[in-house]
Each structure stands twice: as C-alpha cells, then as structure tokens.
C-alpha cells in the first residue's frame, strides 16, 4: 500500500510537558510546538478550554476505551503519551492553506476521530493550491 505525499507541514501543538521525541517517532517529519498559555485550545472552545464530560464522553463511550487500548497496543513507541497529562482538555485538528484558508476542522470528542476522507480532501486541496502557486510567499 502506498501513502500519498502531501506538501503541508504536520504540526502538533501541546500545552504542557511534551513527549516531543515520542511524537516525532510516531509521525516522522512532524513538528511539535508548545502553547503554554493554552491560547489555541481556548480559541477552539470559543473562549474556554473544552473538557471531556464524565458521562457524555467517558462512561458512556465504550469506543473511547477500546480505541485507547488499541492505540496503546499498536503504537508502543508513543510511550505514556496523553494518558498522564492534561487528559480532560479536548483538542482538535485543522488544515490551513498557505493563504490562511481553513480547509478542514475537527473538534475532538472522546471516542470519535476526525473524518479521514474529508481530511484527505483538504490535504489534496492544499496540495493543488501549492502546485498552482496560490501560496503566499
């Protein structure tokens, strides 16, 4: 199986002590950045950091636990990872073009993952913008 090569950068933004080495081992070519004031998470939450709810996200979501165990089993190189940090803060993923156009947005909810097909579409859109020279220099 071949993987498509995309032109966009892969950036992880975290708010605390970072397992940056583990991230880079799991995502070669990825970059890690620290947002110690949690400004980005606050923006994503519309002015406050979104938190995982006790019933809505943890107890009622068996998919979260099964997904968590599967991820730990499949990626032992990622180490302790998110299990011992700011675990109730919810993040997200977004794709931005060089012209600051928001191409894709997923707000994290435990037990759910981003729509990978839409994510790929956003990456392809970004690739086409880069190849056509739309990017701001």
């Amino acid at each position, binding site marked *: 199986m071949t993987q498509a090569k995309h*032109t*966009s*950068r*892969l*950036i*992880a*933004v*975290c708010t*605390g*002590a*970072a397992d*940056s080495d*583990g*991230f880079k081992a799991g995502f070669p070519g990825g*970059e*890690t*950045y*620290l*947002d*110690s*004031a949690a400004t*980005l998470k606050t*923006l*994503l*939450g*519309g002015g*406050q950091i*979104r*938190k995982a*709810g*006790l019933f*809505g996200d943890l107890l009622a979501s068996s998919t979260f636990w099964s997904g968590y165990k599967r991820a730990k089993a499949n990626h032992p190189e*990622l*180490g*302790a*990872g*998110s299990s011992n*940090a*700011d*675990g109730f803060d*919810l*993040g*997200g*993923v*977004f*794709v*931005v*073009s*060089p012209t*600051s*156009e*928001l191409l894709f*947005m997923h*707000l*994290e909810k435990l037990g759910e993952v981003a729509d990978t097909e839409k994510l790929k579409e956003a*990456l392809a859109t*970004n690739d086409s913008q*880069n190849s056509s020279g739309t*990017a*701001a220099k």
Partner: protein
Amino acid sequence: MMRWFSGGAAESSAAAVKYSMQEFAAVQVQALESEADPPGPAVPLGDLWKDRGAVVMVVRRPG
C-alpha cells in the same frame, strides 16, 4: 442537571466557535526540538503554515 454532567456548557461553546484565522495565526508557540532541549523562541502560529499550509493537531499531549 444532566446537561451539566454531560459537559453541555462546553459543547455549546464549541458550537459557538468563530473560526477567525487571524486569531489562530496570532497564537504564539515555541518549537520543541527535543525533550532534552528548552523550547525555542515564540513564533506566531500563522508563520508555520504560510509557506505550504499545515495540518495542525491540538493535542492533550503529543503521543
């Protein structure tokens, strides 16, 4: 009551998010090259995507 337990307030605020890319771009972040090294100087997040775009993962903790 159930709304409180299920994190309803947070969900409502999430729905009200206004995706102002100018605000996103202005967030100051510091590069983490390695766990052994101190964070780099602060740079605006927008500088990271201005050349070729970016997938930005806002994580609880990388890994």
